[in-house]
């Protein structure tokens, strides 16, 4: 089967700066993929390319289309919040709904109204009168009311308080997500999305350093907290990263020999956030 998003040698240069450096990755239907990387790693550039907002080199297919050339058609099946708070200051909430209902064939007005009814936001208000969090809620309501095959979210909950964030992710998983949809999400709050992701893409300096399902991560990576006096022995198993923690040393292994590791301490699957730190700090392991 062909992937929903397929990138081969995807490259984007801004003058001398290489934002994406021959990145290869693919995203399958029905997955919730976290695109995770430090600031300036190329996350936003990758999303811009996927959404047809920027020219690029290399090959890129999204829903079987070339994003830059076919953006108009692509946007019937893909929706995105490319950044927070980009609804224009002069736009009224009810006008925003009217507009999207008027131009988007897959927009479900009742769904948007339902989502907005849960907030304190009334229709006659302009975006400039709303707080950052409220603006984000309007944008999320507009976007989630679109019956899209691919939803792209770039830092979707920036500016939302903890309650609104958790409500958003609950709605995303329970009401929005189903096996026909695919979500690609970037966020700095990795811990917050860790439980809903099915796949992770780690990106660093424009290159994909990990493209894996979380199931595979559990098989492929292991971490062991080792007492200080046994670290030397454990190092024989070639950890690719180690980190001191509360008098112990946590060692991270790829393709671990679980039986041997069990002798050094309790073996566990690293969290996405820990694995991210380990992969990026441990370098080219």
């Amino acid at each position, binding site marked *: 089967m062909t992937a929903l998003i397929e990138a081969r040698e995807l490259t984007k240069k801004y003058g001398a700066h290489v934002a994406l450096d021959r990145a290869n990755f693919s995203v399958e239907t029905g997955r919730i993929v976290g695109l995770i990387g430090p600031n300036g790693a190329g996350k936003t550039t990758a999303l811009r390319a996927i959404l047809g907002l920027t020219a690029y080199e290399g090959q890129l297919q999204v829903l079987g289309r070339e994003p830059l050339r076919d953006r108009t058609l692509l946007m019937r099946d893909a929706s995105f919040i490319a950044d927070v708070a980009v*609804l224009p200051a002069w736009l009224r909430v009810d006008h925003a709904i009217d507009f999207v209902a008027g131009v988007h064939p897959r927009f479900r007005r009742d769904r948007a109204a339902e989502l907005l009814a849960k907030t304190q936001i009334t229709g006659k208000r302009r975006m400039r009168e709303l707080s950052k969090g409220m603006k984000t809620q309007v944008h999320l309501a507009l976007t989630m009311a679109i019956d899209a095959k691919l939803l792209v979210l770039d830092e979707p909950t920036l500016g939302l308080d903890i309650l609104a964030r958790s409500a958003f992710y609950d709605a995303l998983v329970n009401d929005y997500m189903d096996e026909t949809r695919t979500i690609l999400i970037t966020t700095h709050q990795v811990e917050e999305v860790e439980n809903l992701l099915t796949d992770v893409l780690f990106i660093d300096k424009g290159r994909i350093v990990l493209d894996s399902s979380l199931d595979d991560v559990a098989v492929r990576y292991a971490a062991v907290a080792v007492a200080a006096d046994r670290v030397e022995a454990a190092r024989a198993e070639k950890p690719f990263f180690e980190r001191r923690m509360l008098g112990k040393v946590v060692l991270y292994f790829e393709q671990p020999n679980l039986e041997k590791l069990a002798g050094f301490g309790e073996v566990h699957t690293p969290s996405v956030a820990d694995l991210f730190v380990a992969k990026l700090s441990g370098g080219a392991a």
Partner: protein
Amino acid sequence: MSTYNWLIRREFWENRAIWTIPAVLGGLMILVTLFGKVNRISIPLQLPSQTVGGGFLLAVGVTFFVVMAIYSTWYLLDCLYADRKDRSILFWKSMPISDTTTVISKLATALIVIPAVYFAAADVTSLLMAFILSVRASSYIGGALWHADVWLQLQVLWLYVIATSAVWYLPLAAYLLVVSAWAKRAVMLWSILPPIAAILVERWFFGSQLIANQLWDRTVGWLVLAFHTSPGAGWQTTVVDNEAIRTPASIWSFLDIAGFFSSLETWIGAAAGLALIAAAIQLRRRRSEM
């Protein structure tokens, strides 16, 4: 079609000045007519009543269209720049609307929708002013403002003005769209600098001024081509204070329809306009942010 409908509506939401400026202008003119010293207007009564009334209504309409030209210039410079500046382009581009459709909707707003608004505002203002003047200054202006044929001729004139200026100024409008889609800041400056630089370079290196002449022709050429600006057939002569004044007897002796539409200059300009529109669309496609 419905997409264009929504895009035009969107322009009205964003740019309330599209209707507030003509509304305020009309309001001011009506206020002056209501409270000004209209009885002191001196009217060359020797002229035919049609010419007096027509001249007055023409002046009202021209005022509207001059203000419109200034506003439209600003609108065209701003329309593809504002949403890049506030980054709302990321929202607009998440809609299944092509960049071609977007750019055409802005151009149509500038060349058709805004002129239509000013046309309507000029008519409403003229009607109200004529009514007020008939009451307040009937002894002076009398029935001069109520010639049905003059009103009809003016409607034809405004439609002609809108149609021909849209064709003639297409390259200038499209150039402004290119700047608007391209500039990272200071659109006004960027719209003026390239032509000034081109003129100066030409002058220093070649000592000629072809570009300056071209630009000047494009600015005023419309008046010269679209209208009979010197007296000709169908013009009438009236003697006022021993001076012969020649005015068009009707709108038909004033409009040079054949001259305008058969001029090569008109169509070369339109072709350049289309090329610049294509450039603006390409820029819009590739420049999603500053």
